[in-house]
């Protein structure tokens, strides 16, 4: 009986191709939107996650909150490492805005005074030259390690190594170039000039550092390290809110909460269009039942039971929504992969989302088809045959 119902449903859909297509369009758009948005959302999530992970493993950032009276100086990095044993190494970050000059070119960027461990803590690697060494700090050498964005702006087509740039009037010899790391949530990690922290004090004319970056001994002690750091900072400055202490895990989980909430929200909005598509199917099926009253009457007169009529119309609405769902899944995943490709994310078509959307569209067809089908099955054959 199911096979016959499938055949009959197929025949009537083929008999009204345009109407079938228009009815499907709602489901096509709904399923396509759900799959595209969820896939894109997940691709965005994994892209952000991998960028955060690239910042360095077990990274903890300690930012003193000046309004609470907490002020840190470069040597406090050593202090912190001594009082918090879970820290394996750390480095101060003294940041400020500078205008860099090379030849006739000027470029405004961030100068970051730091110490040698910062390279490993931040998970950076050198493209050329050398990084900061301890003696650079001791002797306040006027040297710089620059990021790729700075290279592009000041040294297009040139080798920057050995050249001298002027940062707020202070001459700096470029001794190293960082490899590109890409932007993470807005901040471009390549748009930076790194100098010894002692040199940076001159350039930006302050001795207060903006943050200490630290590396926990392992990811398992990272939460403990965060708690310890908060405790010693609060104790030192006699304030319950002396510093923002963020581990990479926390940043990651915050970010992934944001992105997955966003993904769910987008998916939900797209789900509404699927619902609207389902209502479209119900609408058309009700019209179909009314139009085919005579056919239903005839089928009942020659021996179709209620269940057979019910099945026929239910199968028809299910086929409509399933085919619509399949086309929508195809378009949605196609659109998602094109967009992911264009944005340089790894291909983000989400297999489970495709299957879920197909199952859901079938369910939509059944749920929204059941009422019209019940109406059809309940028609009185005498009344139905009299029509038209």
């Amino acid at each position: 009986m199911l096979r016959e119902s499938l055949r009959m449903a197929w025949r009537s859909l083929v008999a009204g191709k345009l109407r079938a297509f228009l009815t499907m369009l709602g489901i096509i758009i709904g399923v396509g939107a759900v799959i595209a948005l969820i896939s894109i959302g997940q691709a965005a999530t994994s892209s952000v996650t991998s960028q955060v992970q690239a910042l360095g493993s077990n990274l903890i950032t300690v930012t003193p909150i000046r309004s609470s009276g907490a002020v840190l100086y470069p040597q406090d990095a050593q202090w912190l490492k001594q009082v918090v044993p879970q820290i394996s190494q750390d480095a101060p970050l003294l940041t400020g805005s500078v205008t860099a000059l090379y030849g006739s070119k000027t470029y405004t960027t961030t100068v970051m005074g730091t110490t040698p461990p910062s390279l490993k803590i931040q998970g950076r690697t050198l493209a050329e030259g050398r990084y900061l060494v301890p003696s650079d700090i001791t002797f306040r050498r006027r040297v710089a390690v620059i990021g790729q964005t700075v290279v592009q702006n000041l040294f297009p087509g040139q080798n920057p190594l050995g050249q001298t740039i002027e940062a707020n009037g202070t001459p700096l010899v470029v001794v190293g170039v960082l490899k590109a790391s890409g932007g993470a949530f807005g901040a471009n990690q390549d748009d930076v000039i790194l100098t010894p922290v002692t040199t940076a004090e001159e350039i930006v004319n302050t001795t207060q550092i903006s943050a200490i970056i630290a590396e926990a001994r392992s990811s398992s002690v990272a939460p403990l390290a965060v708690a310890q750091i908060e405790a010693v900072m609060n104790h030192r400055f006699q304030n319950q809110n002396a510093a923002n202490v963020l581990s990479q895990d926390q940043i990651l989980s915050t970010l992934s909460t944001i992105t997955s909430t966003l993904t769910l929200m987008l998916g939900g909005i797209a789900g509404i269009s699927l619902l609207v598509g389902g209502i479209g199917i119900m609408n058309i099926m009700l019209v179909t039942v009314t139009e085919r009253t005579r056919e239903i009457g005839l089928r009942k007169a020659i021996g179709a039971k209620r269940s057979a009529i019910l099945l026929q119309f239910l199968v028809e609405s299910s086929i409509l929504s399933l085919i619509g769902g399949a086309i929508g899944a195809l378009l949605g995943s196609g659109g998602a992969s094109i967009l992911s490709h264009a944005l340089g994310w790894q291909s983000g078509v989400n297999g489970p989302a495709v299957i879920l959307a197909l199952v859901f569209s079938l369910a939509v067809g059944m749920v929204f088809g059941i009422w019209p089908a019940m109406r059809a099955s309940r028609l009185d054959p005498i009344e139905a045959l009299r029509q038209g």
Partner: protein
Amino acid sequence: MAVAAAAVAAAADRVATKMADVIRVEQLQRVYHLGAVDVPALRGIDFAIPQGQMVAIMGPSGSGKSTLLNLLGCLDRPSGGKYLLAGEDVGLKTDDELAEVRNARIGFVFQNYNLLPQLTALENVELPLVYRGLSASNRRRKAEAALASVGLGDRKHHRPLELSGGQQQRVGVARALAGEPDVILADEPTGNLDSTSGQEVLRLFLDLHRAGSTIVIVTHDDEVALYTERTIHLRDGIVVSDGPIPSEQRRGLDERGAS
């Protein structure tokens, strides 16, 4: 002994009824409830139609012949009295049981053919067999035989709109025949046809009748009644006359005599 004999006699009687009368109605009544008013459409009808008979049921509009047709076709249930179809009381069956009875025992022929336009002639004829649950090959074989018997073996892949009215009605007859029903119920089968096509269809009924089919034709057309061997006249919900058409008027017998 006496009890046993009586039981045997009763059984024999039942068998005899079953064998003899395809249709038997006893004090058949149908009352429509329109709001507070009860409108009696059939007010106690008795007749029996034996196996192989060709009967016309006639009457002016409002006489109750459509109501009677619906009851005979198991599309409706009587308000009172009894309807035995092939010996079986169908008055107390559920909707689904009635659907089964219609499928197995009754072949409908409609005034407006009621063919499904998206299906071919063959598929239309197969339709009752689909609901009987026959296999595709079995259905096809029976449907082809039925189409051949109405002379449309060469039109089986045509769709209804590609056929003339007379041909469409012959497809309708083939659909009624395909399930090998106990009785063929025709509702104004020539009502939408010109006289030539109408006569063709009536001759087809006559052939089926000669081959042994039981046929009941509901009509208001005196011409149609001339082909049948018996006419039941209804008026105001009761039978006003029931009897054979005088043989000199009967077309069917004339032709049979001539051939």
